[in-house]
Each structure stands twice: as structure tokens, then as C-alpha cells.
């Protein structure tokens, strides 16, 4: 009897292993963008309701992460970046990951419906479905457009946050969605430029694998140009402001410069310096998104002070 327990203990799943299934790092980004979506909305939300709603949105994102790890265990096992995840590492069984993902999905959507409103809950349910089913089960393995369309899943949280406050959708929440949606391709393609071996090995049809790095570099530049337009347009909605405008002008100039740099570069140069520019661009993309949402928050906090100049609301 006791022998059986001793033999199993190497596989004994701990609390931390189940927590890792929720992709805590992705969750922190979801918490942040959803909180900004909620806080910049023109309707005030009770702090307890707001806090609980953000928590349930994060839980929903975590649930979809667990479902993703269940379905993708075979891919994760061959990629260096993901091989230590709980399922490929054997600490959590795929079945348990699936059960946890499904139950947390139901719990998070149900609790958001009771805490906030049915519209926000419906949007959260759609987000989970989109990430776990549309992206993970279909797009990821079948098309190089996987992260372009799949990026929508990551772009929904600020929209859900906005829906918690307002109960609906509007141009401002669509712009926040668009900002993350268009940001995702250059962000991931920069990663795939220096992680190409991993994706090739796992058979994931990333753009770098199917069309080569030249096409990827072209696409990074193309999406970065569109991103600059979206980011600038957001400044002239009701959630934009002078702080956001300043941040977006500086960061888009840097991001465009980085994208042009990557576009001009040949692979031989990249290999020579171990993809230093690609890594730099990837890190900048993280700063880019964080700073844009932080600036929206600052402008929301400063709004109402007479000394703040207001931008014309065009959209």
C-alpha cells in the first residue's frame, strides 16, 4: 500500500502545478488590460464588483490556458519554451488539465454573469471558446494566419472590462480591441524569428516556417504600420488624451523604426548577432502595449481636471 504512494510521489501534482496551468503571465496581462477597459469606461463601478469582475475575467483566461495546455501537450513537449509546462512534464495529467479548464470556464462565466451582467459574461464565454476551440484546436495547427486571427482572443479582455461597466460595446472598446489585435502579429512574428527552430520541430505552421523569414519581415512591417494608425486613432476617441497621445507618438516612432530595421535585415546578419534586433523588437513590443494601456489609465484619472487640455473626439 505505502509502496504505491511512494512510487507515485514524483508525479504528485502540487497546487503550484495547477496554478501554472492557468498561464499566470498571460493572466497578468489580461488582468491589466481588462482593468483598464473597466476603469476608462464612462460609467463608475463599485470597487468590490469591479475587483470581483476582473478576477473572474482572469479566471476565464486561465481556464482557456488550461484547455490550451491539455490540447497542445504534444506540441509543448517538443518546444524548448514550453517543455517544462505541467502537462508535458508529467506533473499534471492531460485529463485533469481538461477537467480543470472546463470547470473554471463554467465558474468564471457564471460568476461574471451574477456579478456584472450577462453581456460581459457572454463575451467572456466567447473569448474562452475562441481561444480554446477556434485558435487552439483549429487555427494553430492549420494556417500561418493562426496568430493573426487567434490574436482576437487576447484582444477581448479590455472589451469585457468595458462591458462590465457599460453593459455594451462602443467605438472605444472596439479601438482597445483593435490595438491588441493588430499588435499581436508583429509581437509573435518577432518571437518566431528567433524561435523558428522550435516551431519547425513542433510542426506549427508559423509564418516563418511556411513562408520563410523574408515574408515574415515584410508582414511585421505591414502590421506595424496599421498598428500605428489604430494607436493614433484611439487618441481621438473619448478615452484618448494628451498623455496617451504623447506616449503613442513616441512609441509608434520607435516601433516603426524597429520594424523597418527588421525589414531591411537579412538572416545572415541576424544569425551573426544571434537575433539581437529581433529580441530587442520583441521586448519593445511588450513595453509598447503596457505603456499604451497605462497611458489610457492616466488620462482617465486626469480627466476632469481643468488644467488638462482635451483632444477633439473625432471617432
Amino acid at each position, binding site marked *: 500500500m505505502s509502496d504505491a504512494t511512494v512510487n507515485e*510521489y514524483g508525479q504528485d501534482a*502540487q497546487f503550484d502545478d495547477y496554478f501554472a496551468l492557468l498561464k499566470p503571465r498571460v493572466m497578468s496581462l489580461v488582468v491589466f488590460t481588462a482593468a483598464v477597459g473597466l476603469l476608462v469606461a464612462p460609467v463608475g463601478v463599485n470597487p468590490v464588483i469591479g475587483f470581483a469582475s476582473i478576477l473572474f475575467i482572469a479566471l476565464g483566461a486561465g481556464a482557456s490556458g488550461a484547455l490550451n495546455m491539455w490540447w497542445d501537450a504534444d506540441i509543448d513537449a517538443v518546444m524548448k519554451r514550453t517543455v517544462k509546462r505541467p502537462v508535458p512534464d508529467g506533473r499534471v495529467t492531460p485529463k485533469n488539465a481538461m477537467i480543470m479548464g472546463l470547470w473554471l470556464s463554467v465558474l468564471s462565466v457564471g460568476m461574471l454573469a451574477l456579478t456584472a451582467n450577462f453581456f460581459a459574461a457572454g463575451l467572456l464565454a466567447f473569448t474562452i471558446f475562441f481561444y480554446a476551440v477556434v485558435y487552439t484546436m483549429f487555427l494553430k495547427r492549420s494556417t500561418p494566419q493562426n496568430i493573426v486571427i487567434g490574436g482576437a482572443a487576447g484582444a477581448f479582455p479590455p472589451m469585457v472590462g468595458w462591458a462590465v461597466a457599460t453593459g455594451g460595446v462602443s467605438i472605444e472598446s472596439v479601438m482597445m480591441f483593435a490595438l491588441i489585435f493588430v499588435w499581436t502579429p508583429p509581437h509573435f512574428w518577432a518571437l518566431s524569428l528567433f524561435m523558428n527552430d522550435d516551431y519547425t520541430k513542433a510542426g506549427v505552421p508559423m509564418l516563418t516556417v511556411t513562408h520563410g523569414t523574408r515574408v515574415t519581415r515584410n508582414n511585421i512591417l505591414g502590421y506595424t504600420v496599421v498598428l500605428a494608425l489604430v494607436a493614433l486613432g484611439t487618441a481621438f476617441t473619448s478615452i484618448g488624451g494628451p498623455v496617451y497621445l504623447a506616449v503613442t507618438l513616441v512609441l509608434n516612432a520607435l516601433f516603426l523604426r524597429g520594424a523597418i530595421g527588421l525589414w531591411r535585415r537579412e538572416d545572415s546578419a541576424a544569425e551573426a548577432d544571434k537575433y539581437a534586433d529581433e529580441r530587442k523588437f520583441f521586448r519593445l513590443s511588450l513595453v509598447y502595449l503596457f505603456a499604451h494601456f497605462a497611458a489610457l489609465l492616466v488620462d482617465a484619472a486626469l480627466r476632469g481636471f481643468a488644467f488638462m487640455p482635451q483632444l477633439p473626439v473625432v471617432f
Partner: protein
Amino acid sequence: MALGKEHPLHGRRKRSNLMLGAVLGGFVALVFAITIVKMAGGNSMEGYDHTIRYSIDPELKATEAE
């Protein structure tokens, strides 16, 4: 066989159990806080319960009285 002998496994499980307990306790506290906020805001905590309830649909009583 003597019970009560501690294996490293028990220590690890204890930690996991305490963490899970804290999470569940936090969830209960959160639901309680939400309930208080909703009731303080004047929301009705009554819902449909398979029978006619005039308290959540006063119009129905008025219709029946006619």
C-alpha cells in the same frame, strides 16, 4: 503498520491543501462581499423559484385582482 510516520509527500500535500483552503475561503468571502454590495445597492435577491411570487412581480398580482 505504524501510522503517523511523516513522508516528505505529506509535507508537500499539506502545503497544497492549505493553499487550496485559502483559495476556497477567499472565494466564499468574495461572494459574501458581492452579496452585501448588491443588497446595499437595492437589488432584489429573490429569483424565480418554480412558483408565482408576487414579491418579484407585483404587476401579476394587480392583473389577477382585476
